[in-house]
């Protein structure tokens, strides 16, 4: 948890989680590590942010969960993306792209 860790931009966490889960099934720690991996270590999501987000997104119907066995035979809660979650990826990706392009052009100017 180095000082270099970039603060998560407001609203990006949901998108990162939805991306990380992808088409598979993942438990909390798995999602956390996957986000670290796909952002090349830029974002490390703490459980204090991760779990509230997971529960909130489940209540919103973007994720669904079930209890299963982890790779080392422990009981773990797995999350899977729903159809609504997939649609949400589309919506948020579009929003994020708009912001990113706007920022890029602003910084170049």
């Amino acid at each position, binding site marked *: *948890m180095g000082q270099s860790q970039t603060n998560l931009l407001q609203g990006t966490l949901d998108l990162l989680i939805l991306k990380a889960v992808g088409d598979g099934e993942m438990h909390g720690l798995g999602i956390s590590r996957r986000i670290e991996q796909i952002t090349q270590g830029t974002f490390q999501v703490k459980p204090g942010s991760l779990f509230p987000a997971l529960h909130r997104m489940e209540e919103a119907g973007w994720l669904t969960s079930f209890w299963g066995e982890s790779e080392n035979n422990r009981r773990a809660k797995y999350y899977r993306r729903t159809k609504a979650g997939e649609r949400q990826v589309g919506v948020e990706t579009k929003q994020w792209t708009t912001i990113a392009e706007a920022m890029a052009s602003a910084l170049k100017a």
Partner: protein
Amino acid sequence: MRSLLRIIAGVRNLFHMRQVEGDLDAEVRAYVDGVTEERIAAGMTPEAARRSALAEIGGTESVKQAVRDGRAGTALGTIWQDVRFALRILRKAPGFTAVVVLTLALGIGANTAIFTLVNAVLLQTIPVSHPEELVVMRWSAHKEPESTGMSSFGDCTMRRSSGNRSACSMPYPVYRALAGRRDLFADVTAFAGTADLNLAGNGQASIAQGELVSGTYFDTLGVPAALGRTLETADEQKGADAVAVLDYGYWQRAFGGAQGVVGRTIRLNNAAFTIVGVADRRFTRLTPGKTADVYVPVNQAKALGLRWGDADDAQAWWVTVVARLKSGVKRSEAEAAANVAFLNETMHAQKPAWKDADDPRLTLVPAQEGLSGFRRALGEPLRLLMAAVGIVLLIACANVAGLLLARSASRERELAVRLALGATRRRVMKQLLTESVLLSLAGAAVGTLLAYAGATALAAFASTNGDRPLQIEVAPDLHVLLFTIAVALATGIGFGLAPAIRGARMRSAAEMSRGTTEAQNVPVGRQRLGMGSTLVVLQVALSIVMLTGAGLLLRTLGNLRSVDAGFDTRNVLLVWINPELAGYDKTHVQGLYENLQQRLSSLPGVKSVSYSSTALLNGGLWTEGVKVEGQTNKQSVDSQMLRVGPRYFETMRLPLVRGRSLGVADVRGGPPAAIVNEAFVRKFLEGRDPIGLRFGPDEKGAPQWTIVGVAKDAKYSSLEEEVAPTAYVPLNTGGATFALRTNGPPAGLVAAVRKTVQEVDDNVPVMQVRTQSEAIDRQLFNQRLMARLLGGFASLGLGLACIGLYGLLSYEVARRTREIGVRTALGAQRSDVLAMFLRRGLIVVLVGSVAGVGAAAGLTRVLQSLLFGVQVLDPLTFLGAAMLFAVVGLAACLLPASRAVRVDPAEALRCE
């Protein structure tokens, strides 16, 4: 969709709290375990791995709390938490809780009780299906129509103002014309009454309230039959069999709910009627407060001998018309068309009812508002009472707020700890408000019970003491329930807000660092006392307003009771009978009355008996336009008239100042003789000898009475009115009220009187028995009701304000015990200590009194119409109210102040 999902999730979270919590715990634990295993795999020792895993997470509890906070249903969950905590806190202080709940119960209960009546009288809808479709037809014009008679029965108020008359009564043929408009109305009905009917054929003869209705009555209102059938159009045809439908309540009361009642024959005013059915149980009334026992077709008026009800007379205005609008027809459209039909009937008849210049028109008024009934009579007192109980509730609120404020002192440390442990100010405030709302809900629950008892008693008082029997439904309904809950919530927030804001505003660290005793002596305390004093000042002021109002009404009542009626009102029993209802004609009535007079006179304890067409001071009045012989003015003048029997003046102790009394010979049909009162002489015969002069209505064939005596002035219709010119003439027709002058209180004679009447002729029903004082009390119904209730509420307010005062000073004494100890130790006298606290109490009382007198001066105006012989700003009453409070308030101050005097300095200083 998303919000719906969240709501479902929230509800699930709430109901499966334990499982949700368990899952969350397992999930977070799995994460920690996962990280630990990663670290072990990376070469750490198991302990070091676990420690570093926990460090990365930063406390499992805070993670779980973060999840909980973000979860749906959290707000509900914390409310539940607050409620449980509040219940615990309140249970810990049972005395405080009981006092607060009781205070609120009285305040809320009084409001609910009065609102129950307001609801029953002013708000409840007509108990029929779709009452909103019903309209009542009301005409208005510059003057009353040309008519052979105009009767109204209290369904819809007759309005008389200069240049405008408006009422609902109509001739039956006009109703027929309007009923023919099936393009406008789904159904139309006409009705009149109720009339006192002598009902025989069901045990002893009794009086039943009979409503005359068209055959369409029940169909228009959508009222089915509970038994048999209701009336039909065929029943109203000429030559149809005489049938009757019973009211459900009357069927239960008078016929014991017997199934075999259908097909039975009863005699109404000596005419045979066959009972064909009983109306639905839910149909209790059309017009508020008016109930009928039996419904008969409108064309039976003649058979019943009711002179005002002639269905063939196009000039007799007596039926009220109610219609149900056809679906899709707007009221304004129906009104325009009905108006044309109405004018066509009334203006183009053989004898037009109006001239064009009188500008008659017909309006359709929603039945709910048009059929006002007793709403008009009771509306104003009820609105006043609603205001009065509102004030009582305010006093109760201020009282409880004061108690909470004093108590919050002892909770300062608790609140400080909670703030220091990270509770947000909002959360603390929510917690305190939850407590006060809980208190007020508990108060409302207890208050509702009080209210039900109170409203029942009030309705009973109103129905037995009013001018005529009323029926008020006090069963609590949805309106009342919602009202009580709203009042309770508003009250809870009202009295809880100030202490809650104060509690949340506390500086946590500062409060905590202080010791217990120190915390009680901080300057903040003075600020709090300021708020506490203000609350007591408010209570004092409001209760003085109430006391002043009650005082004015009590003085009014006293004034009315001490009015000289002009005759002896004590020990008189009044008995109403109407032999004409039992088929007596004019020639036989006379004999019956003489017989009764003789038989009743011989009853033990009876001094003298007479009778008159109506009782004095009982709300009845007969006024006649007469011409007095020799009067220069050609116009006729109005005189009140009363028909009397022999020995009337002797029995009523109404002194004659000149001439002779009326005797048996006058009644039996000698030359028409009359006695007039002094006002008659003063107004019409100034300076002339009245004896021997003649007067009478200015009509052909009307009797011309010769004045044979002059009686002292006596009140006739009401105690409040000036004595008007009155003439007493011999009674030789119609019903009568017998007056029995007794030696002692006359109430014990009632049974003997009834028995005597029955012995003479058991077909003649005794309609009413009352003492003269009861009759007068009924006249004073509004004043009595208001004086009683306002007096009660004012005492309640006074009591609450005194408790508030007592509480304020007690708190002050407790808070300053140490200071008292120091002062006494330094040589202060007991009288100094006593004066210190009494001064404080008296300042509060004084400020409150001044504010209260000021407010009362502005508010007593609303009582104007109820007052008699006393001004709205009567200084004596105002002073009296303030003095009364000063005395009672002083007593409330003395108790805690004397406790302060007894403080032992050594003890006070030691108890650190």
